[in-house]
C-alpha cells in the first residue's frame, strides 16, 4: 500500500510565500491561504490575529469537499470554485489541481472579477510546487522522535 507523506522543503515554502504575497499586493486581499486537499495549512500571509489560519484551512477543505459531493450529485466531476459573499468580506476558494485550495479573503473594495483572474493565474504557479511536495522523500529519518521523547512528552 502506498502511503506517501507530503514533504515541504524550505525553498518550496519560500516560493509559495512569494507567490501569495504577490497575489496579496495585486488584489489587496486581507488574507491568503494555501491549504492541502486534506485541510492542512501549507502557507498563509500574515493576517489579523483574530483569524485562525489553521481552523480556516480545515473548514475550507471540509467546505470544498462537501461542495464537490454536491457537484457529483448533479453530474459534474467537481466544482473548482467556491465563493462566499458577505456584507463586507468574502471568501474565494479555487482548486489547485487536485492538490489543494487557494483561499483568498477580501473585502468589497476589490472586484470579484479581479480576484478570480489573479487566483486562476496563481493556482497555475502553485500547482507544480504542490505536486512536488507529494513526490518528495523524507531525508532525515533520524530527526523523528524516539520512544523516549514520546514518553517524556506524555508526562502531563
Amino acid at each position, binding site marked *: *500500500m*502506498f*502511503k*506517501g*507523506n*507530503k*514533504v*515541504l*522543503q*524550505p525553498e*518550496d*515554502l*519560500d516560493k509559495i510565500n512569494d507567490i501569495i504575497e504577490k497575489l496579496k499586493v495585486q488584489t489587496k486581499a486581507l488574507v491568503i491561504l494555501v491549504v*492541502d*486537499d*486534506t*485541510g*492542512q495549512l*501549507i502557507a498563509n500571509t500574515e493576517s489579523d490575529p483574530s483569524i*485562525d489560519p*489553521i*481552523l480556516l484551512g*480545515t*473548514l475550507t477543505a*471540509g467546505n470544498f*469537499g*462537501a461542495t464537490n*459531493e454536491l457537484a457529483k450529485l448533479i453530474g459534474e466531476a467537481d466544482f473548482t470554485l467556491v465563493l462566499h459573499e458577505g456584507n463586507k468580506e468574502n471568501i474565494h476558494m479555487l482548486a489547485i489541481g487536485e492538490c489543494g485550495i487557494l483561499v483568498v479573503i477580501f473585502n468589497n473594495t476589490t472586484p470579484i472579477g479581479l480576484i478570480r483572474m489573479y487566483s486562476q493565474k496563481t493556482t497555475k504557479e502553485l500547482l507544480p510546487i504542490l505536486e512536488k511536495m507529494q513526490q518528495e*522523500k*523524507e*531525508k532525515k*529519518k533520524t*530527526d*523523528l*522522535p*524516539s*520512544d523516549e*521523547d*514520546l514518553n517524556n*512528552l*506524555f508526562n*502531563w
Partner: protein
Amino acid sequence: MTMINYAKKEIICKVVYYGPGLCGKTTNLKFIYDNIMGQYKGKMIALATESERTLFFDFLPLDFGKIKNFNAKFQLYTVPGQAYYTNSRKLILKGADGVVFVADSQTDRFEENKESLKDLAVNLREQGLDIRKIPLVLQWNKRDLPNIVPIQTLEETLNFRKVPTFEAVAAKGIGVFETLKTIVKMVFVSLGGQG
C-alpha cells in the same frame, strides 16, 4: 498522509475518531480539550446539531511543541456516526494517519459497532488506506453503563488485528488520554518506519 514541513520544522499528523452514532467520539475530543494543558491545544470546532449529533465533523488541533528537531502537531477529527453520513466520513478520512475506533459497549449497540467497523474498512480503502495497516486503536466506551457487552466478546468480534484496546468512560475521562497517547505513539512509529 503526514505533512513534514522542513521549512517550519513541523510534522502535522491527522487522527480520526470513528464509530457509530452517539458512541462518544465528540465526548473524547471535548474531554481532551477541557483537560489538556493550555499550551498544547488550539481552538476546537464542533459542527453539531442541537441534539448533540455531529453534523459534519469536530476538529481539535494539538501542538505538542518541540520533540527533537520537530514541532509535533496533531489534528484530531471526529466523523458523524449515523449511517447516512457516509460521504462526510469519506471526506474526513482523507489523508488520515491514524484512527481511533470508539465502540459503544451497550448490548443493544453491538451490531452498530460491527457495521461501523466494516464501514471504516470500506471508506479507508476508497481513500487508498488499508484498515489492516493504518495505526489503529480501539476504545470500548461507556463501560459504566448497565447491559454492556463483555470485553472478551468485543475483543473477539471487533479486534481482528489485535491492536491496543482501552476500556473507557469518555464522559468522565477514563481511558481518554490513554487512547490518545497510544495512537500518537503508533502514528509516530509508522512515520519512522517508512521509506
